């Protein structure tokens, strides 16, 4: 199963190291694979460098594509992260 959803990056620092780390941590709990896309660039969602290289600052729209058995649960959890701004608290 493959699903796609778009998210807006709402935390003030953007998808910086700490936020990227949260996404990677999350991915470890699911067997499905995550890909993130910004404009024409798509990267693996399981590497901190690839996520950082997307350079998603606040306000960017990111498209998440998840492919695998537990894709839906993964997407739910991912949405939670985005909505909660990655628990950002300076």
């Amino acid at each position, binding site marked *: 199963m493959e699903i796609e959803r778009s998210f807006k990056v709402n935390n003030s620092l953007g998808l910086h190291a700490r936020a990227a780390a949260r996404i990677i941590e999350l991915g470890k709990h699911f067997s499905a694979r995550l890909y993130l896309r910004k404009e024409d660039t798509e990267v693996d969602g399981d590497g*901190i*460098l690839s996520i950082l290289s997307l350079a998603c*600052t606040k306000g960017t729209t990111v498209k998440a594509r998840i492919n695998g058995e537990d894709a839906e649960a993964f997407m739910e959890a991912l949405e939670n992260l985005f909505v909660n701004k990655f628990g950002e608290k300076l």
Partner: protein
Amino acid sequence: MTMENQNENRELRGIPVSPGIIIGKAHLVDRSRVKISYRYLIKSEQIEDEIKRLNDAVAAMEDRLSEIKNRMPEKARDHSYILDSHMMILKDSMLTDSSIEKIKKEKINAEWALKKSFDEISLIFSQIDDDYISRRISDVEYVVEGVLRNLSGEQQQNLNKINERVIIVARDLSPSDTSELNIGKVMGFITDGGGKTSHTGILAQALNIPAVVGLESATTMVQEGDLLVVDGNSGKVTINPDDETIIFYQEKQLKDEEYKSSIARTCHLPSVTMDGHHVPVRANIEFMEEITAVRDYGGEGIGLYRTEFLYLRSKGMPPEDELFENYKEVAELIFPDPVTIRTLDLGGDKLGPPFKTTDEINPALGLRAIRFCLRETAIFKCQLRAILRASIYGKMQIMFPMISGVQEFLDAKTIFDEVKRELNEKGIDYDREMKVGIMIEVPSAVTMADVLARHVDFFSIGTNDLIQYALASDRINEHVAHMFQPFHPAILRMIRHVVLAAEEAEIPVALCGEMAGDPRCIPVLLGLGLTDLSMNAQSIPMAKAMIRSISMKEARLDFLKVISLGTAAEVHEYIDQRIKTVFPEAIFAENGVRRASA
């Protein structure tokens, strides 16, 4: 004096980021560029071994990172996420998998493959438009360097293994470096790079280690084992000091330590004069991270929150929500103490296109601060909305910078009220009782203080700019910097004039500027009748101690004496005499007052 060492008593100047004085031996930490000792091609049958070699080096680095993390001092735990991200970088497929791939396909040794992968990542990062993210390449570099050292069998420079008390000298220290410092062994550190807000400085303060950064040439000037004096108050570093210098600093250090321990015991006592007058001492801050220091040093809230940072950091204008989140958090963190937030105090020159005005010969007298905001009302309203929305999360008041007269204030207030109305219409909550004040820093505002006082809720005198405008001397222009005199009788009279106007209208009048942080100024400032003082967090304990050791009655007499004097030199002389008798500690602290820009 011997001629053995050319560097005898050589002085370097940098940016003090963590106070204290330390005398000790230099220990150079080589965190220079990644060097690869050799590159070579391997045979097909060596591929397996080479991959294993890389994996082992990566595993060793992983062990090291977790060890550092476990050893991290309690106070630095907040920074442990940096180590987590180092760990993730280490295991990132762009780095390790890609290196293994290169070993297999190109038949090159592990070091070479790793370096190639690093260069590829570097290239990608260099094209990123966001400064914050593109700078993360330094984290990748740190990780790669560690693995390379493991590969070459070179001894990891483990800062924890130092068994002698030393001063660390480095180009720059990564957060992992600073957090693995064995505090018992490290007396302080100095670096070539870094600025006032570098991570290193924030961490050093948390760990209580004196530090000077931005020395530019420390690693080339200093040799392993050199004797160093590091003055984290003034930013001065002396290499191989002569006897006199050593004695001078040892005495200073001793007093400093005595003072520090007495301050630590007393800085949470209220700032009440001997005859019972309470004069709140608050902090000037620029970053949210400073709030911890404000609390530690016994500050009663924030007297000046500078809001320029978020505008300078992002390329475009920061969105309202980002501002709101920031202000809200500051208000919450400092609560129940108050925060006075100052609206944007920048000129278009700092904001880039389309606001850049290139035709200003004299930007200090140009389109900046409130003038800029009154022209770019969209930007101004956006900030006002963010402030108002955040106002319900704590005790917040607002002030406008660089107000030069009544009309300007009324114009700003009109916009402020307009924003309030818009929020009302949308049903968005804000603090309806929020106080609105102004900075008094333009001489014309001093003259008009009595009229202004009828319109505003409070004054805050920004002496840094006021002195510069009133005495027509730019303090960063070396030819006239000596004329920048806080003790100039004209300045004292101007402050007095403002205070009288405020008293008449029964509004509070604060002073936020470097002057407030200079303990010698305090008796006079109290005597002048200021109701609030705001300064750099580090200056707070001394200021409070000073307030507690004088009486308001004496301070008024000091003021009466001083206001009749004709020159700054006379004022200085009088004050120094007085301080010597009431509060001798303040004399040595002269250099301890950290530079602020209000």
